[in-house]
């Protein structure tokens, strides 16, 4: 079962900006969109009421985002490649992310979820996508699911452009997740099934 999906901005030192005031410091890692699928099992009963529960959920997701950002930075520095150059133009078809940096890591019980979870992540330029899974989950399928979610989100929310669709159009992300990861259920979809699904959603088919 997938416990949560997180779309984050990696933050860290920004690339040199076009003329304008320089950012004051390294940008923080931010959760741009997140979806939790139910309260994680093993959570202590609601002490402090709904506001505390909500706060706990938001902090758990932020903790995941920070870990992903940190792992991503470490991976990029170990492979010695500089941050990828800008894409020449916004792709409007789902692009293949075969070579996008990604990885797997585990978070121990209590930090931040009550039970152990495994996180699989994928990064594209200054963004990252992550799935928080139960430890015994099929991680191969999780990676496939992420590689399908990412390009579709990139295209539908125009994540590589200058806008803020990701913040202002949550229903777009919701609808995509409802098809590819309904209620946190990963699906064994072959390519044709995926095409059929894309057709239903109105997404242009990839080559």
């Amino acid at each position, binding site marked *: 079962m997938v416990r949560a999906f997180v779309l984050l901005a990696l933050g860290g030192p920004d690339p040199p900006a076009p003329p304008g005031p320089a950012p004051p410091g390294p940008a923080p890692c931010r959760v741009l969109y997140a979806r939790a699928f139910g309260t994680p*099992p093993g959570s202590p009963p609601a002490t402090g009421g709904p506001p505390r529960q909500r706060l706990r959920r938001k902090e758990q997701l932020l903790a995941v985002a920070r870990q992903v950002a940190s792992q991503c930075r470490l991976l990029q520095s170990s492979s010695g490649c500089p941050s990828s150059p800008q894409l020449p133009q916004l792709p409007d078809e789902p692009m293949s992310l075969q070579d996008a940096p990604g990885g797997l890591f585990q978070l121990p019980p209590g930090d931040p979820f009550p039970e152990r979870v495994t996180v699989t992540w994928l990064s594209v330029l200054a963004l990252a996508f992550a799935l928080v899974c139960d430890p015994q989950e099929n991680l191969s399928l999780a990676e496939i699911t992420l590689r399908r979610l990412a390009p579709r989100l990139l295209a539908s929310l125009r994540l590589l452009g200058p806008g803020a669709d990701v913040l202002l159009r949550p229903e777009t992300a919701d609808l995509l997740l409802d098809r590819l990861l309904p209620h946190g259920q990963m699906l064994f979809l072959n390519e044709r*099934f995926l095409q059929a699904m894309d057709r239903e959603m109105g997404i242009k088919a990839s080559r």
Partner: protein
Amino acid sequence: MFTAAAESFLKQAREIQEEELRRFVSRVAALLQGPELGPEAVDCLQRLHLTVAATKYPRKLDGKFVELLQTVLCSSKCPEQIQVLCAAILREMSPCNDLILSCDEIQDTKLLSLVSSVLLAQGNKKAEVSAVGQRIVKVLERRLPEGQSAQYLLPVLSNVISLSPESLTEEQTNVVSRKMADWLRYASIQQGVAQPSGGFFSNPRTRQPGPVTEVDGAVATDFFTVLSVGQYYTQDQWLNVQAFSMLRNWLLSYGGKGLKTPNSDDKSGMDRSVMSVVSTTSTSSRLLPPKERLREKAFEYCQRLIEQSNRRPLKKDDGDLQKACLIEAVTIMDIICKQDSSYMYRAASFLKILHGRICGDATYARALLPIAQFFLNHSKMAAVDSDAIYKHLFTDIPAQLFHNPSLAFEFVQFCKDNSQLFTETSSIFRQSFPNLFKFLAWNSPPLISEFVDLLPFLLDAGTAIEIFHLLLDLPCLTAALDIQLRSTALPTSERAASDPAVKPATCLEAFRHPLYKSMFQYLLRTKSAPEDAPERLIPLRQLLGSLASSPRVVQCAETVPVLLELFFRVVAEFADGPLINQLVVLLLQRSDQLYEIPAFKDDVYRVLSSQLVMLCKLHPALIVELSKEILEFSGTVSNIQNKEAIFTHVVWAIGEYMSVSYDKRCTVEQINRFFETLEAMLFEITQLRPLASTSSYAPRAISVLMATLTKLAARSQDLIPRVSMFLSKMRTFVQSPAVTSVYCEEDLEEILIRATELMNLLKMPSVAQFVFTPPVDVASTRFQREVNDSLPFALRIVTHLLEPAPGCMPG
């Protein structure tokens, strides 16, 4: 990018004040209650969502408005986009107290799924999870009305059982099990049809759909599965996909005896005393109870998937799915066999054949893990010899595929899940630990915490020494693996063995050079092989120095101190005297033989020196037993510069433990011998040479030398005059211009104060003796426990006693 526009929106959303929000909410309420829900309503809801989501503290929305959101969500004439937005806002606010939502009356399956997503986010205070579960099953039980599809409901059910499997009664699980068996086994094998576009000119006669195909284009040979391909899909085919996707969870929760949570270990299948070797026939399957029938269909499905994964897919990405299906199928078979051991024989032979098929293919490596797990769980009952499987897994896979981060992660998880295997000394698992460290050497950041969990299982008296060397050489291993990879990537023509007479110009050449080849082979070994002469690797370490600044090597080096500390902590629990002695000797030896990364060496020295102290505490007699090695180490002047931390702690340990109260064999001769060596060292570093420049040494080293000499003198009192004279010369040393230009003022002052205090202490030999050599059972007072802090404290007290400042008599 996290753009300027996005930053600005976020900031605005956070800064909206309560009053402004209230006005906005009433505007939204008016829009929602209006006749048409158009783009303006969408826009407002989107902004409202951002406002609610942007802050960590909850935004208070009017109770009536929250109710309105729920009403709009459930209203049938509301456009889908608005419904989804309302659900998103409600979820973002969850858990909320003002929820009146209920799924009981909802007929539309899509809406039911959406409403469930809100209910399941409430934290289950009011048993919402169970209510949702009940409703879903109720809807599934009956025939769905036209146009409604169960495909929206299965994922909800899956979520329900992962959150709270007790939500469903046994009767309900039977209902669903029966349906799942049908969906898995009897989906149509004809392709679906395109939805007719309608319109006046559309042709009502649609083309006859053909049969579904396999991933390689051949016509489907058997029942429909997730690896079946078609242009359009029918409803029952969608249900087939969904049913398989949730199958594992379902079987874990409800497949065994009684209800279990997905995470608990299901051993109920093992209770069956009857093991049938003859496979169960399926002729009477219709008469099987639902649980057993589902099990049978699931098993057949998994077998078919495994066969289908043998086909070469037309689309490359389907290959990835095939592998994921393979892994899932093997895992489900494992679960089925745990729940019903009569499947064992069929499964075991089937999986053995599968293993034979894929074990040579590196792209299938991840699937080897669940296969090995199956045989670990069942080989005794299946009476299959699976040693070859484990051998291949542990010997070949890490050596060839250490650079695959996903495989590395899963492999290490596999080891952690089966950690009890490593405790058996002669087992292939235990013997392969050098191979396992390759995963860590190459993929340090994600795997370091996993290895912290795994290391204790690999460590025992037989492996401790080899692992000690391995940890210290871990960054070398990274460098060597890099060279191995690059060498394998070379075309064969360039891989000629180098001329033995010519020294290799690059590391890559050295890989095949006879001089270095065996060293590389040792470092890259796949099996445990204790090395008698660790200095054998010195030339290799020097050669690899050119890679010492490579980022991957540096990342690996950063993990070593953590692992070293853990290593000693674990070893301390079982090490006996001889092993401790061996470790100390090696510690001193290896301090000269470390990979040349400056930060790495400093960190390692820091850890080794504090662990040395720990070992001395465990086995104080080692000072006497290893007096030769310790004398040699503490008598080498270059050690004070190069390995100051270790030197300082060694000297401290001498002062502390070279005493008859720790080891009866400590003789006056030995004390004198140590005294002379250390005195010579102190002389060497405090000597004022008139014409040569003075080099600076760590003030800490000077202090500890003085203190240790004093301690030794307290035990062999003939030495007291020598020490006192030496200490009195420290004033000259500290005040000489050659020295003041090289050391800082505070340090010199400290040295002088310390020298004075020690001299004063020696004026009262019996007090000195007490402070420095207490009977062992009193040794646990505060004065003795800390290395550097307590001694000055004690000395200060004594100084006060000897030279009381006016008006400062201790009470």
